[in-house]
């Protein structure tokens, strides 16, 4: 029932609200510069063709995670009519090559007892699997082969487009997905964040006719300079790097990205309403435009902490609306890190439609008050402690460590940004929070969308 599960595209999410807090912070007295937060040794190398390789030994006897991060997501779907294509292409990457048909691909992983999968988000497409130590070369071989030599028929392409439509259909019966789509379509006029990763339904329905474009998409974005291979677990760094050089060395595709259009500065509030055909409690979403992720300033860390301070379950507003007055069944905040200016979204599932306006106004008032009133020092300490322990408790498997790194590699290409980012968490002061609230959480930068039920159940 959580609102924060919305961005699940295929398997998992790299930066849902909970995920943001699943990375941590080293505290240091007096705000002095702390040492690196990420506790494991990281080796980063770049092949001659531009492919970056990030290797992190971790005690997970016999197994390692093997991720290929393509720094392309629905953000890169710049041509009209092509929304959802990054995700669609993720599906096509399982359709085989001349050397390994899709059946051979599945058979190899079946033999290894692994579970190859992938997901797409606004900014990245990530292919992930677990490799047994003694099967790592086979994984490197088959993974490099599909990135260099993917081959599929038009018939396969059309059949796979139906699976994507099926994925849209399975999501479509959830009112929260519809609300999320509408928020983005209203908040953006130009930038590709206007559509979700699934894409607009009319574009999904037209996908079977886009075979030629799919080849262009592959050549444009599936290039060594746009990808990062990330390995975490039980493997030999030097031996593995030699295998990477051997298998990925012949990959020569040049980088050829299309520019992503910039969103004009928003200067006035926007709104939209939608009606749901079936039974539902009403929802309201209030969102604000926030800057792109930047680990080199305090803005991103400040906004992230502010999301918890103002709207999570320990916040005064949550206590008021959900616990005390019981006007709201669920209140949540979702402010994912994004490569380009993103959204800081507050969702409320309201019990009585007559209370929608009052709840929406309390959200605005809370955001506006944050610009004028310093946050309680104790609460700021508690939120930082929550961040710290969330991170500590999230590093318990190779896959969890990989997930933490993947987010920062996807955003910046550089795993070291995880340390840079968390130095800023440590440095955030109440005045930083007031500044970012006053700058970004304003009505002029807001978009509000309501969803109400049309059903009688």
């Amino acid at each position, binding site marked *: *029932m959580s609102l924060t599960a919305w961005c*699940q595209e295929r*398997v998992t999410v790299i930066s849902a609200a909970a995920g943001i807090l699943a990375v941590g912070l080293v*505290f240091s007295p007096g705000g002095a510069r702390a*040492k690196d937060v990420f*506790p494991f040794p990281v080796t980063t190398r770049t092949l001659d063709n531009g492919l970056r390789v990030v290797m992190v030994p971790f*005690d*997970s*006897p016999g197994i390692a995670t093997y991720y290929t991060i393509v720094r392309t997501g629905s953000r890169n779907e710049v041509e009209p009519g092509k929304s959802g294509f990054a995700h669609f292409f993720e599906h096509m990457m*399982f359709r085989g090559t001349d050397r390994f048909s*899709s059946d051979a691909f*599945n*058979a190899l992983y*079946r033999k*290894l*007892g*692994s*579970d190859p999968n992938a997901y797409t988000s606004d900014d990245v497409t990530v292919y992930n699997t677990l490799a047994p130590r003694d099967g790592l070369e086979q994984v490197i071989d088959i993974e490099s082969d599909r990135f260099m030599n993917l081959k599929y028929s038009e*018939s396969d392409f*059309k*059949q*796979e*487009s*139906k*699976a994507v439509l*099926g994925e849209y*259909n*399975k999501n*479509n*019966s*959830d*009112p929260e997905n519809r609300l999320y789509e509408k928020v983005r379509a209203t908040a953006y006029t130009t930038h590709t964040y206007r559509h979700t990763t699934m894409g607009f339904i009319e574009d999904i329905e037209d996908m*079977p006719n886009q075979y030629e474009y799919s080849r262009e998409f592959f050549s444009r974005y599936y290039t060594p300079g746009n990808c990062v291979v990330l390995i975490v677990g039980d493997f030999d760094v030097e031996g593995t790097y030699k295998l990477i050089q051997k298998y990925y060395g012949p990959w020569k595709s040049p980088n050829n990205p299309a520019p992503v259009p910039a969103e004009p500065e928003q200067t006035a509030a926007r709104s939209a309403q939608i009606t749901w*055909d079936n*039974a*539902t*409690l009403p929802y309201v979403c209030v969102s604000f435009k926030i800057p792109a992720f930047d680990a080199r300033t305090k803005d991103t860390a400040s906004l992230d902490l502010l999301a918890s301070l103002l709207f999570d*379950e320990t916040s005064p507003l949550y206590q008021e609306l959900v*616990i*005390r007055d*019981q006007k709201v*069944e669920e209140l949540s905040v979702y402010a994912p890190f994004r490569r380009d200016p993103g959204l800081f979204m507050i969702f409320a599932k309201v019990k009585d439609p007559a209370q929608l306006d009052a709840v929406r106004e309390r959200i605005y008032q809370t955001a506006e008050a944050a610009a004028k009133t310093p946050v309680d020092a104790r609460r700021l300490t*508690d939120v930082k*402690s*929550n*961040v*710290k*322990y*969330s991170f*500590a*408790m999230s*590093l*318990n*498997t*190779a*896959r*969890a460590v990989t997930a933490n790194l993947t987010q920062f590699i996807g955003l910046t290409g550089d795993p070291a940004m995880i340390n840079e980012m968390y130095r800023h968490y440590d440095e955030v002061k109440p005045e930083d929070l007031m500044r970012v609230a006053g700058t970004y959480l304003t009505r002029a930068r807001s978009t509000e969308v309501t969803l109400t*039920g049309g*059903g009688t*159940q």
Partner: protein
Amino acid sequence: MKNALKFAQALMAMLAIVLAMVSVPGDARTAKAGIPTVLLPIASSPLVTFRIQFRAGAADDPAGKKGLTRLTASMLTDGGTTKHSYEEMTALFYPMASSVRAVVDKDVTTFTGTTHIDNLDKFLDLFTQILLEPRFDAHDFDRLKTSQSNYLSKTLRGGNDEELGKQTLGVCMYAGHAYGSPNEGLVSNVDAITVDDVKAHYQKMFTRDNVTIGLAGGYPKNLVDRVSKSLERLPAGAPGHPARPAPHEISGLEILAVEKEGRSTAISMGYPLDVTRADPDFYALMVANSHLGEHRTMNGVLMNRMREVRGLNYGDYSYIEHFVQDGGSTFPITNIARSEQYFSIWIRPVQPQHRQFALRLALWELDRMVRDGLTQEEFDEARSFVKNYSRLWAQDQGRRLGYLMDSRFYGIDDFLGTLPAKLDALTRDQVNAAIKKHLRSDRLCVAVVTKGADAFLNDVTNNTPSPMAYDAEGIPQDVIDQDKIISVFPLNVNKTASKVVPVSEMFQ
């Protein structure tokens, strides 16, 4: 720098968690006169996981009060304690990044939480308050009861069709049985529950004679005694679990079609299965099921033939026990063990024009496996896969502990630890014999969520042909030939046991 140093040491200690988990066997033991414990000590782990399980579940809800166990568990975790209001409890847990959640299923309710060793004492104090000193405040009760009722009447009816389909299958398979309603209950029943009902249910079911303690991680030796002594203060008594009548005998295809507005059609089908992990045939069926429809993998016949070859939908899977996916992983959650299990097939939403064909195709593939069994090659591949894949099911101490507790529930040795040897000992003949004995394609409940449910029921009852058409060219001839057979595959619908129900009447 004191804090920073301590924290860094804690992080480094985590390096050894996985290694320790592999080498440390689970230790399920029952103290002579105390509360049973399931222990997984991992000295190097900086985390401590608690799983406190009561043999109390939705199947224990009294008639007219379906949803009572779920609401009682929510009142414990989300209703505060005599010492602290719920707001205060939330604030106290928050700096530790910890919480206590209740997993409620038919036969067991499990309270779970994990804390960093730094915060063990504070966490334990709050956890025991939750179990021993529930507040039962009327204002919190109103909030949680309304939320549970809204889940049934709004979220389940008006939202995700796939979940609605699965819950509808439960209603169909277990009509008149203690498993026959969602764990959250029925709308009219939940609305009728009083706070006194909750207090009485807590006193009756959440007792010291009905609880098992599960601990994992780097806990100090005295923690077991501390927790045991605390839980001795639970209400006294053993509620007992009288034998239940068997689920009704299914005859033909019993269709429960839910009329609901929407773009697509969700289908789930299945029947009660007289096999659990305690039965040797379970392991043979694991192999057969992996071949037919391993959850969220490309391996299964259903996934391959329905999605990959025909593009019918996003995915198609099968199960030989109750399965709930663990978050964003592809693995099942633990601690939903049941004394009675079921076989099921989950067909993810299809376009309405393909709903009858999709149903026929799934049944046809099931029928084919029941009739022909697995070839030696299919058996070898599926067994090898399950053996290797199951290594991934317990990558953290919480999941490992969950599997150990489930093993205790079924009265078996460590399920995951003994699985490889059990799989190694299997033969193809044993698997095919288990298929013949336990699986079937002619007597199932079929839950369908669709617009135009009357027309659907009419079509399947009359065995109306359902030819398949493709937009794409180049569909292999053998697939087209097969489609012709499948399009008229007989559907033996039990007309008197089948019906259409408006979604507004579901779970009422």
